């Protein structure tokens, strides 16, 4: 993030109360309170791809907790803040546990239902004053000063909002943030790189609930009065709309969205009655139309869409990484060449009645390159998915470096030293090349959300980025790490994927059609790279269609057809094997080009 922008914002805030009329200071306070909530939605939705319509309920928990405790028990607001955070965190944990495992529309619906429920709970509990709420909440005091005035609160609210903004930006620019932005459960890639997507989702869901809770705490002591109305579903939807309007992929979008919405609503509520003579919540019509218009014409929201209008940085650059030298990361010892590294024994996978892989066995030795070939639909990619635990097998055994991999998920397989690439280079389009590769080194770091928010992980981060840079240089892309990953041609995207896999320090590298779609010179370079990796002690298994590429590179070949292994051997043995020829040609033919070729 630009430090300059932050300084300008801080300066504006400092002088704000002197420039603005009192009414606008109060309005600015509302904007700040909403910004804190919407910033959470940026992390959750814009980066993490999760939708919540329950944020107002979390605000309500923070507000009601402090209101009740400070009135009924005279508890210091500074203590009730933490009680509120604990209650909110517990609620978010429960709600998250119920909905985050489910796909798609269940989280938004679960949070919608939760919003409705909690509203009626607030509105019916005797101790919380039912529909009337609680009034005479004590003001905040700090170091003997009473923070009663709107101006004093302006500073407090906006300091919290800016801290939230900084924390979100810090989180997004970290190991944890890359995991958040990895696409989570929408792509097999994240888990295959060792990201615990369920845990990441839960962490950000709780964090954004806590931000909402803080906003509620501030609200209660600012208004000194709470009732259920501002914590209902309608407000939750409004928070969500602020994120949509401002642009959920940008932290500044949260503040712009909140400001646009709250100030716009204020104007509309004055203007509409003045023009139509009717009083009522007609502003919702306007905001509904604005949201639909945004989703039709500028789906990213105001801030990112306006940013697109600025002159583009050359070469599709999306970042400006400064990667210094750092202590290299620890790495695994390579196994003794020639020992059996991966053993696959009678592997079987059925989809319904169809046997995609049927009793396939083979071994891979350390330090060799093995190719898995066969006609389309032979079951090669299924085999890859079985080895890496992306899909569960029906029967068979598999062991790696002497340990069984049976029953392990793709993350656990990866942690044992097997990393793969995907047929359609699965890169994160909006992340830079360097960030994509650094995602590969995810399991070689430890820092989480808190360390990232507080920037306590800079040393580790430097080591991760240095590793990513090293791997990019290794595949020959050392000069392009600031570019957006999807701005590069397919050939380079494949190299980025390989660099990303290498960044995870694997013992066995699985490449799914690495040469597909590459130009001739790119193939030559790729073959050289893979050859070098073998020399350095890496073991490789690749699925590939390009026979030229395979036969000149690999040590051994396994041929599959209709889910079964039909041949195994050295490349020249394979090329004369009648079964293989039949699989590729449909029948053994006198004028088989394969025979001429050898």
């Amino acid at each position, binding site marked *: 993030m630009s430090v300059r922008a932050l300084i300008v914002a801080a300066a504006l805030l400092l002088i704000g109360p002197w420039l603005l009329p009192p009414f606008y200071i109060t309005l600015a306070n509302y904007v700040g309170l909403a910004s804190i909530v919407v910033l959470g939605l940026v992390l959750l939705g814009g980066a993490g791809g999760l939708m919540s319509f329950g944020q107002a309920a979390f605000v309500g928990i923070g507000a009601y907790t402090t209101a009740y405790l400070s009135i009924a028990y005279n508890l210091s607001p500074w203590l009730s803040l933490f009680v509120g955070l604990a209650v909110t965190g517990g609620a978010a944990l429960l709600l998250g546990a119920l909905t985050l495992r489910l796909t798609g529309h269940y989280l938004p619906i679960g949070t919608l239902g939760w919003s409705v429920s909690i509203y009626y709970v607030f509105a019916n509990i005797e101790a919380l004053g039912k529909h009337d709420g609680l009034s005479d909440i004590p003001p905040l005091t700090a170091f003997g000063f009473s923070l009663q005035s709107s101006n004093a609160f302006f500073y407090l609210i906006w300091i919290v909002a800016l801290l939230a903004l900084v924390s979100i930006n810090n989180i997004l620019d970290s190991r944890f943030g890359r995991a958040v932005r990895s696409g989570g459960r929408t792509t097999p890639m994240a888990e295959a790189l060792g990201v615990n997507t369920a845990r990441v989702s839960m962490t950000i869901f709780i964090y954004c609930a806590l931000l909402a809770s803080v906003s509620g705490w501030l609200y209660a002591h600012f208004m000194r009065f709470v009732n259920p109305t501002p914590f209902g579903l309608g407000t939750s939807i409004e928070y969500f709309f602020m994120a949509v309007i401002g642009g959920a992929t940008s932290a500044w979008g949260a503040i712009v969205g909140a400001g646009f919405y709250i100030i716009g609503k204020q104007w509309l509520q004055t203007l509409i009655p003045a023009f139509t003579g009717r009083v009522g919540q007609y502003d919702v019509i306007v905001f509904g139309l604005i949201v639909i218009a945004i989703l039709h014409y500028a789906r990213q929201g105001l801030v990112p869409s306006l940013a697109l209008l600025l002159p583009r940085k050359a070469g599709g650059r999306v970042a400006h990484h400064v990667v210094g030298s750092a202590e290299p990361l620890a790495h695994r010892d390579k196994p003794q060449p020639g020992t059996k590294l991966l053993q696959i024994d009678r592997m079987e996978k059925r989809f319904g009645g169809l046997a995609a892989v049927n009793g396939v066995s083979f071994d891979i030795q350390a330090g060799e390159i093995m190719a898995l070939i066969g006609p389309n639909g032979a079951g090669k990619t299924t085999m890859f998915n079985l080895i890496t635990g992306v899909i569960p097998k029906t029967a068979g055994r598999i062991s790696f470096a002497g340990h069984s991999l049976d029953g392990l998920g793709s993350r656990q397989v990866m942690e044992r030293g097997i990393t793969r690439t995907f047929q359609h280079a699965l890169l994160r389009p909006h992340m830079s090349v360097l960030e994509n590769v650094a995602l590969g080194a995810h399991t070689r770091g430890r820092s989480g959300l808190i360390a990232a928010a507080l920037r306590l992980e800079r040393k580790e981060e430097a080591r991760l980025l240095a590793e990513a840079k090293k791997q990019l240089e290794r595949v020959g892309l050392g000069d392009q790490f600031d570019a957006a990953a999807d701005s590069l041609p397919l050939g380079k995207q494949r190299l980025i994927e390989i660099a990303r896999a290498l960044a995870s320090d694997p013992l066995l590298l699985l490449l799914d059609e690495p040469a597909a*779609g590459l130009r001739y010179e790119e193939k030559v370079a790729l073959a050289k790279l893979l050859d070098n990796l073998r020399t350095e002690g890496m073991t490789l298994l690749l699925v590939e269609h390009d026979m030229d590429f395979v036969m000149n590179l690999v040590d051994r070949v396994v041929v599959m057809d209709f889910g079964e292994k039909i041949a195994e051997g050295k490349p020249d043995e394979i*090329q004369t094997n009648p079964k293989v020829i039949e699989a590729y040609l449909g029948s053994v033919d006198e004028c088989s080009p394969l025979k001429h070729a*050898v």
Partner: protein
Amino acid sequence: MLALETRGLTVGYGKANVLHGIDVAVGEGAIVSLIGPNGAGKTTMLMALMGLLKSGGEVRYFGEIIRNVDVEDRVARGLCLVPERRELFGDMTVGDNLALGRFSGWLKGDRDFKATLDDVFQRFPRLLERLSKNASTLSGGERQMLALGRALMSRPKVLMLDEPSLGLAPLMVREIFRIIADLRKTGVSILLIEQNARAALEIADYGYVLENGAITLEGPAQELAGNPRIVDTYLGRRQSAAE
């Protein structure tokens, strides 16, 4: 007149181009094969011709530029795709799948449903036996027959087939190619995409080779089938096939 023609067809995913300026022509009533390795952009090209993907350049259908024509209207005009993944309606019966193949004709008011259906059953008697079975319960070969049958239900003028032999047993591959060759008599023009280069060139009049998103070779099918470079690239050879 040419049934289908592209000039400078380009397709990009994100910012990377997958097809860079393809010129292909399919004469009326001809079978044209397009061969090439995985990832060369063959499927992408058919998707673009069908209108399922945005493309640049020019696509002419019986002389008319069809840039602004929706997928569904292309179907109504007789352009028909049998995709690589077949895209059948799995939870519906074979009969329903075939009936829906006639959907665009039905919308136009054609009511020659029975005759078309009889014609399809004549080509694929197997489908008549399986009429009330769900499409998802069919074997791979039967699925391909159903996909072809469903396409024929629309009485296409141009049929685009994406890897019809994919995943089929050798015997079934031969059967499918026999049926495709047989379609020639109906006057339909066929653009056939295959990895099974030999079989594809055998039944075709003309052939193209698509590599890395560009046409690298073209010619009458018989000539291409004898071209040593095709032999090398698609069937493997010890020494490098570098030019």
